[in-house]
């Protein structure tokens, strides 16, 4: 429940002026996409795969990372911190802020506790 309220705050910040967010607890995760993150999900997936996946796959140094690796709240916290390699470097080393937002949108929308965990349809 704690993670939940925190998330709610964050989203609140991110979606000021968003038509859809009525602030109802129930609606938060539903409106999470696309209104949850204003970034571009398709592009986010692209950047994530192109940049992160090089190290973050099974048995690679970074260890496997997928959207399911974290909850929506955790993803937001992680990107808010923007730290990489145990904090030794910043994410901006790899992606522009805009690209990062896109990546976050993708990861957030398919996070382990998201409404669309498994990629749709398949």
């Amino acid at each position, binding site marked *: 429940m704690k993670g939940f309220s925190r998330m709610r705050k964050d989203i609140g910040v991110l979606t000021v002026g968003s038509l*859809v967010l009525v602030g109802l*607890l*129930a*609606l*938060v*995760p*539903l*409106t999470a*996409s*696309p209104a949850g993150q204003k970034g*571009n*999900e*398709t*592009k986010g*997936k*692209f950047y994530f*795969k*192109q940049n992160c996946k090089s190290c973050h796959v*099974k048995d690679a140094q970074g260890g496997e990372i997928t959207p*399911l690796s974290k909850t929506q709240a955790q993803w937001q916290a992680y990107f808010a911190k923007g730290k990489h390699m145990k904090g030794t470097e910043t994410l901006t080393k790899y992606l522009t802020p805009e690209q990062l937002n896109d990546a976050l949108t993708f990861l957030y929308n398919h996070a*382990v*506790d998201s*409404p*669309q*965990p*498994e990629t*749709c*349809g398949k």
Partner: protein
Amino acid sequence: MNRRGFLKLATGGAVGATLLQAEACGMPLRQQKVAKVPAPRLEIPTTCDMCVNKCSLIAIVQGGVVKKLNPNPENPKSRGMLCARGNAGIQQLYDPARIKHPMMRTGERGEGKWKVVSWDEALDFTAQKLSAVKEKYGPQGTLWSSSESFQEQFFRNLGQAFGSPNSVRHPTLCLASVNLAYSLTFGTVPSFDVQNARYIIMSGANRLESFITPDTMDLVASTTDRKARLVYLDPRFTKTAAKADEWYPIRPGTDLAFILAMLNVIIGENRYDKEFVSTYCSGFEQLAEHVKQYSPDWAAEETQISSKHILRVAREFSDAAPRAMYYAGRRSSWYRDDFSMRRGQAILNAIIGNWDRQGGMVPNAKVELGELMFLPWDDPTAPRVDELDRNFPLAAKGDGVYLRLRENVIAGQPYPVKGWMVYKQDPVSGIPDQDKTLQMLRQMDFVGVIDIQMSDTAWFADVILPESTYLERLDPVEMLAGIRPVVVYRQPVVKPLYDTKPLLEIVQGVAKRLNLSQYFDYTMEQWIAEQVKALPMDLPLEYLKKHGVYSSAQFPKYGTTLTPDHRFVTKSGKIELLSRRLQEAGYDPLPIYHPPTQVPEGQFRLVLGRHAFFTHASTTNYPWLNSFSTENTLWIHPKPADSLGIKDSERIEVASGSGSIRIKARVTPKIRPDCVFMQHGFGKHSPWLRLANSGGSDAQLLETAWDKVSGGAAMHETFVKVRKV
């Protein structure tokens, strides 16, 4: 075989082929004797596409003619199996009703006046029409509907790159409610380890008749060789019923009552897996409290199954745990609260702790495939026309909700949709309430269809872009997740017989003309090369070309998720008996029973089902399959038949709220007296599908109704009047 025999084989396809081929290569027919010179006999492994099951097969090809399709035993899923449809694949390739060239409509829609055009002309026309719609209504003014295929993604990508949020797929006409119920409970849709089960309860899903898959094979083996018990609920005496140990002609729409009563017994008598429930599940207390009200006696009233049977089945079921399962199977939504019934099943499976155990439910394992990275496009800005977020907040975004979408499009709400691209789908004869589908189709400024045969939808299209059949096509590699995940490969076994193209080339053709080429600047070969990189072998492509399928010996694996720290992909991270997400979305977090609508006096409930000869509406025109059921009949029980004075194979009229048809009666004791049944895929508009025109179409009768949560079309909510004519 003598020459006469040789020619006569045409019925069987094989020589039809030589002739067609001869024709295709512009070779004069008298030269066709050439084909008699014994050509080398090739065995080419590839993957079936006669239904969605993706069985591996080996095509026997001689002189550029497909002689026979044999099963490929190397696939641990389909093993040495090829069903009737699979064997009839030859007839899809050599089907005279195939679309042999791009065609454009010259007369009115559905008038059947066509002109054969060049690909350039057809693609220019398509692109120009799509742009015109975009011009006027924005990209969201186009609708992109498609069904599953290895290449479907290219079609959907085109729709998205074009800027339309409106893609609609088959699940809401199919297993949407199952998928959603299991996802919300376990965070994923598991497979059922039928092969090792000891006790199987199946309701609705008619898995020995409707669809021949590995589960079918395992089901037969389990119930015969390993003496597993099969309890089967169905208003109809199907072939599954014939093989079941117990068959109960349950009152339609009351399955949930049966399930809730089982929960009531199993929890009430402390027969559930306490350790499993306390370790992995959440919301048990509320569940226990909730099912107290649903006693076997109460359920007996609802289901018309005596309470002593319900009681016994519940006990036997929990005794057999964890090698017991309430089989979900592949099936459609039947009632407006179909989703709750699925949830009930999922919960029942959960509390006996059959999760991730041998003979229970197992989360699907995967084989990693590589992915070709292509330039991403901007996400569509407009909301979906079916207003998913408002109507079905939990439904899968990419799939859409077909019937809701149709309502909105017809109403022009929230915005007009005037362009319709259809791939490998036949909404006109496939979807309930045909009049509405036609209404939706008629209000379109443009309808483009990509298909292999002149489907009813193609019949009403403005332009038809013919796709090559699966035996003529190179497809992306496909990974089938499951207890034994496999990677299957589809390679062309003959050159295209006619002026057809694989979908990717069609998509690229349209994309080029819409200036979207940058998103599709790759070849099928490049795409596949990227995919197979991830396979654990050197020369993976050669391997697939040779074997047609790859699977790893490390499967099956049980219990990978059975560690206390495992986080299920649900809101709470646990198996949610009480679903947080349902609660948040304002639905009942626990399945609540709502009795089905009573059958009005003098009417019948129209129940549907599939037969494994026919893949939905698509294979009824292939003579080898059609010969098993040359026209659909209306099953009606002798008692009502007598009182209506209807004799077997008499013509009768069947009328519902949305239409009426003429059809032959089949008086049989194999169905409940309050139900009637008919097959799907007949009564076509398209005269090209001559064999399938006989009998009426269920799509004309079925009324618009959907499952409240998943949006899946509710197929058993239609009541019909039957009378002699």
